[in-house]
């Protein structure tokens, strides 16, 4: 294989794929990018993978000699970054199959290669369902839920995000067992697809990065064990978590008629200040709600205390409860309305936080027993 690529185009493609490359690999070849020329002899596809998530990015290049190779990912990325703007970079698999040379201007590099045929590509995902989704919708859904995913929980299915298609809704749900984030968007479900899948944490995080410069809509394909999405020149494939996600309908409390509305920015600032003097591990703060007033108090093991008073609109006569303040901050940060509505059933049941004018995004937080 021998190709010449324009530095900025190559750097962009490498940047799209480098995120999946782990710092420490289970297989040495997973530290490399897979490079392969396309049959049209005008493009090269770059693949990065950690066996769970695979990213592919295609770019236009000059193909001198078709073929495939693998190149140490972090090193080729750093080399491209360090070369001058506008450089033309030539990558060539040497006769000695164990070396790849990279050259541009007056710089030359010889890198160690591993055989391309040993690269573990995820091949031929058989589509069970295909659909198209608006990029902006997916960005919002992930942004409003992904933070609530567990990480390294023994209930492995919580270390991911539920994506659900149902009637005319597309929905994302994530939970770590203490709080749950749910967001949905209207969806033209012409094929009447009903599907629930769990995307692993890493897949979600990489997908979020890709969406930043994705075209207006993206094509999604769901297979038995994989999800893949095509975003222009980039394709994303992730394994799915095989497990049953908790039924979020059972978690969303009913008969919540104790309501309190607050200014989001004021609340955010007050929560942030209260968090400074709260217990580091549990981040507990106390809530005391009385007509038109919310008093937030925090204290830490050193017996230092804080008190914040917030004006609120509420019909609650009196309610005392407590929360992990970080959960509250996550919840209100996910909302883009000016006001936020807290709804309670009682002091010990879960609380729903949302935009007062919309139920598209609901944040459910379990109180702390303080």
């Amino acid at each position, binding site marked *: 294989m021998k190709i010449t690529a324009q530095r900025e185009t190559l750097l962009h493609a490498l940047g799209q794929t480098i995120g999946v490359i782990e710092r420490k690999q289970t297989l040495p070849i997973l530290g490399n990018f897979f490079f392969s020329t396309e049959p049209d002899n005008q493009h090269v596809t770059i693949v990065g993978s950690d066996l769970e998530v695979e990213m592919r990015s295609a770019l236009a290049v000059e193909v001198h000699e078709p073929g495939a190779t693998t190149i140490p990912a972090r090193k080729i990325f750093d080399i491209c970054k360090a070369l001058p703007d506008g450089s033309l970079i030539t990558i060539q698999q040497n006769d000695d199959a164990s070396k790849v040379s990279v050259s541009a201007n007056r710089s030359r590099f010889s890198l160690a290669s591993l055989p391309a045929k040993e690269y573990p590509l995820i091949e031929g995902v058989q589509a069970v369902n295909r659909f198209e989704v608006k990029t902006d919708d997916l960005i919002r859904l992930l942004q409003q839920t992904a933070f609530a995913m567990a990480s390294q929980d023994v209930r492995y299915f919580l270390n991911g995000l539920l994506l659900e298609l149902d009637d005319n809704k597309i929905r994302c749900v994530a939970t770590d*067992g203490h709080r749950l984030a749910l967001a949905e968007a209207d969806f033209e479900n012409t094929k009447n697809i009903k599907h629930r899948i769990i995307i692993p944490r890493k897949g979600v995080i990489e997908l979020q990065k890709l969406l930043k410069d994705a075209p207006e809509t993206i094509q999604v394909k769901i297979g038995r064990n994989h999800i893949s999405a095509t975003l222009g020149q980039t394709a994303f494939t992730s394994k799915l978590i095989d497990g049953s996600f908790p*039924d979020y309908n059972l978690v969303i409390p009913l008969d919540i008629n104790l309501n309190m509305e607050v200014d989001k920015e004021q609340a955010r600032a007050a929560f942030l200040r209260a968090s400074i003097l709260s217990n580091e*591990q549990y981040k507990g703060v106390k809530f005391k709600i009385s007509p038109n007033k919310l008093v937030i108090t925090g204290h830490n093991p050193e017996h230092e205390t804080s008190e914040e008073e917030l004006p609120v609109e509420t019909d609650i006569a009196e309610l005392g409860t407590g929360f992990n303040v970080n959960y509250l901050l996550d919840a209100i940060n996910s909302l883009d309305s000016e006001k936020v509505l807290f709804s309670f059933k009682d002091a010990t049941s879960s609380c729903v936080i949302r935009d007062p004018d919309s139920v598209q995004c609901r944040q459910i937080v379990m109180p702390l027993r303080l």
Partner: protein
Amino acid sequence: MQNSRRKIIHIDMDSFYASVEVRENPALAGKPIAVGGNPQGRGVVATCSYAARRFGIHSAMSMARAKQLCPDLIVLPVNMPLYRAVSARIMAIFREFTTCVEPVSLDEAFLDVTHSDACKGSATRMAEAIRQRIFDGEQLTASAGVAPNKFLAKVASDWHKPNGQKVITPKQVGAFMRSLPVSKIPGVGRVTAAKLAKLGIQTCAQLQQVPLLTLQQHFGAFGQRLHELSHGRDDRPVVSHRIRKSLSVEDTFPTDMASLPACQEQLHRLYLEFLKRLQTHLHKHPRDSIHSRHIKLRFADFKTTTAQSRGQHIGLADFSALLQTAWSRSQRPVRLIGLGVRFAPRNKPEQPRLF
């Protein structure tokens, strides 16, 4: 809050287990006796009578060694239920003088009598009265130390032992400390004493001259405490409701367990014993929740290792897995196995689950 105005009494029973045994069998009076494990195996001396101490026997010494030092030593098995019953009655006497009693072990306690009106508020008289009450009720003697803090009270109770007491008034603290050898400081054992001796320090007067920074360099966090103690300062309160942070059982075997399966068999026996104790504890403290489990192994070469894992579940399998981990580190015959749990800190917030 406390400083020189506090009045602390430290009461320490004289050779408690041995004295109880003598009381039960007066024929033993004045004879060298030791309570503890079997001298044929690896038993150690739990307590010994003053007659036995004259042979150089002390607690924690192996019983076999004690028997070498004094062939006529009378070895008695530990009768824990009896000692517990006696201890409970003694502790009850303390509580007649103050509610602020901190038991250290069955035979030792700190009393904060700062706010006690007994004996017209005289701590010295209270200590005398307590010792008299113990003697009248149990025919056992105790020693007492009276001082402005726990550290000094503990040093004082040892001063005129057995059956004596010493008072250190706030005014006497300065002079007392200057003459005190550093080896008398609780927590300064052979190793620290030797380290201090290397620095040319034998008395607290010398210790007082050492800059705090130097002490911290040599002794880490203990340096700060040494500095405080050298001036006779100790702010630790008497804590009447000590929270149990862990519960464990352990056993040294008469002969080493040569293999992992042999260890597992012993583990099973210890596990049942542990469960019994844990049940009793949880019955009294139903709110305690288990934070982690641990296994302790001491190998034939006296190297000790521990393995622990977080989790609430305490099946035999959990400990068995830890035993395997710990054992595989040395793969040598094992002389001691211990197992136990640590409890989660109390009064912490609790995050309930959504589902």
